């Protein structure tokens, strides 16, 4: 990975108009409510908002029109999602389905799966969750033990997933399971798309340290799903999953999770800030501007059909460090009580508490650095 040449970010069409339309739409439709919902907003679930966003054509943008999608270019979608995140819009409900499950179904899914799931995803009405982690398989994902056995009636699933964000609000789970008996490590794995109302599935909440119910554990007790639940090729689950993970690490959500706090900091500072505050704003601005260039360049590379696995990991590593450090750096210089009612204080507290997760979800810092080291030729 010698040198990081910037790849030109050049979406088709009138990008300024796309931004202006969306900003106008948000001004009319973004819920005003609780300012804290704007922090880490891709974890904020709001089905009404997702449905309205879908109706306005901002969900499933890159899916083909025959499946209800917008037939738009991936970089047009990039523009839309960075605007939504910068505005702190509550995009959590449809986020996973729009970002990865929909595109994955389009790429690997059967025609029946596409027809069944994609239109609902594009409407912002059908939500998906990611079934990778298990109690014994965290960073070491190849240790997955949940099994699916093929029978004459279909696949029988037994096992457990954990940390499944939004499972209690989702319609489907895309689960990585072991389909080949006696297989080990990353061989013999497959992806199954399972409706969460199938008998035998139990979803239990896990309350996070912020007191929120976002993630869950899911038990599969002899769950029977049709043969057609298999996504892509039997036994190719590992390849499909790593492509899915690797390519979704460079999005703007990897550096914008704390953006609402930055906005509040700048607004609270006023036009003539004291030197310490001005200095911090300057440093954070240099970071965010640089990260945006890196993220856009990587998105453009992806859109051009390349495989920028290492660049994507660089964006995640730097982006997570930025969004995670920001609350700490803000706290170090602003005077505000833990329970103060100002927007700045509320966002600060919420993000100090939420931010440890930023370098865990989507691959831990250590795992991401390992991928970068491999790109450097060290492993």
């Amino acid at each position, binding site marked *: *990975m*010698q*040198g*990081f*040449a*910037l790849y030109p*970010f050049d*979406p088709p069409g009138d*990008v300024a108009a796309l*931004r202006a339309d969306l900003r106008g739409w948000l001004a009319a439709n973004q819920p005003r409510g609780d300012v804290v919902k704007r922090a880490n907003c891709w974890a904020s679930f709001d089905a009404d908002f997702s449905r309205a966003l879908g109706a306005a054509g901002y969900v499933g943008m890159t899916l083909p029109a025959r499946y209800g999608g917008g037939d738009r270019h991936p970089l047009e979608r990039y*523009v839309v999602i*960075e605007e939504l995140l*910068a505005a702190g819009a509550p995009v959590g409900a449809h986020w996973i389905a729009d970002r990865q499950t929909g595109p994955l179904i389009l790429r690997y899914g059967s025609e029946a799966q596409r027809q069944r799931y994609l239109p609902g995803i594009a409407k912002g009405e059908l939500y998906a969750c990611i079934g990778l982690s298990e109690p014994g398989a965290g960073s070491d994902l190849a240790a997955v033990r949940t099994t699916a056995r093929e029978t004459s009636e279909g696949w029988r699933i037994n096992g457990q997933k954990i940390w499944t964000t939004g499972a209690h609000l989702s319609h489907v789970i895309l689960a990585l399971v072991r389909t080949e008996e006696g297989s080990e490590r990353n061989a013999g794995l497959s992806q199954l798309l399972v409706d969460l109302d199938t008998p035998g599935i139990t979803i239990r909440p896990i309350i996070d340290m912020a007191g929120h119910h976002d993630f869950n554990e899911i038990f599969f007790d002899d769950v029977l799903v049709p043969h057609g639940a298999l996504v892509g090729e039997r036994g190719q689950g590992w390849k499909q999953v790593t492509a899915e993970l690797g390519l979704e690490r460079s999005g703007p959500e990897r550096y914008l999770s704390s*953006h609402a706090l*930055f*906005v*509040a*900091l*700048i*607004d609270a*500072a*006023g*036009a*003539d*800030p004291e*030197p310490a*505050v*001005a*200095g*911090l*704003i*300057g*440093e954070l*601005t*240099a*970071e*965010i*501007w*640089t*990260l*945006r*260039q*890196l993220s*856009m*360049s990587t998105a453009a590379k992806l859109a051009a059909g390349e495989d920028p696995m290492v*660049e994507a990991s*660089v964006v995640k*590593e*730097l982006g997570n460090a930025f969004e995670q450090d920001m609350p700490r750096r803000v706290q170090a210089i602003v005077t505000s009580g833990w329970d103060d009612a100002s927007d700045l204080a509320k966002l600060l507290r919420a993000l100090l508490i939420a931010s440890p997760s930023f370098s865990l979800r989507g691959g831990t810092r*250590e795992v*991401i*650095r*390992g991928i*970068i*080291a491999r*790109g*450097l*030729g*060290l*492993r």
Partner: protein
Amino acid sequence: MSAAREMLCDTARAVLSGATDIAPVEEAGFALLLVPEDEGGFGGDWSDAHAVLHIAGMAAPDLPVADLMLSGLGEVSLPYRAAATVSLMAGAMGQALSLSIDHVNTRQQFGRPLGKFQAVQQSLAVMACEVAAVEAAAAAMAARLDATGFDIDAASFEIAAAKLRANRAVGVVTAIAHQVHGAIGFTREYDLQRVTIPLMRWRGEHGNDAYWAQVLGRQVAGLGGRGLWESLTARTG
């Protein structure tokens, strides 16, 4: 990269590799690179300058190549010098990273190359991220200077951000490069100090961290929280 820029870079590499004296660099005509064609120059754009300075930062960080190149523009203000320095810094950091990777792949301890140890791998990954950030910042800054026709006021935001980002990377990059090299990197003979000492010097020249942080911070405070985002998106993409 365009064919013309490829050729320019080939020339720059040929002239700058191992150069110990600015005279041959002067003879190659780099002072004319940014001078418009109708004034007898090469009419290069800022991205051309960036490409040459990047090579200079790698191959000849001790020579005043940036001064030479800027001399074609007459008396220039601090932001021009800061912009040129960012490109040098990107090149020098890339060189520090290559030297480090080569070293850990070659040097053996405990019966293995150092690069096989996870602690070393993780350090170099951190360093590579900083280098990538500076590379991206330098290239984006150059693109902005080109988009504005070298208008230093219109590009002041990008220059401030890029110099500040590069400055902040210096500590991490030089520290990790020296750490993974061990004692050999602390010698005068070994090439590492040829890039790390200039990096230390450049951090303080043409605006240190505090200087650019104040400039940028005050500019952004004037924009307001939402205004920052509107400005970022109006500038690129």
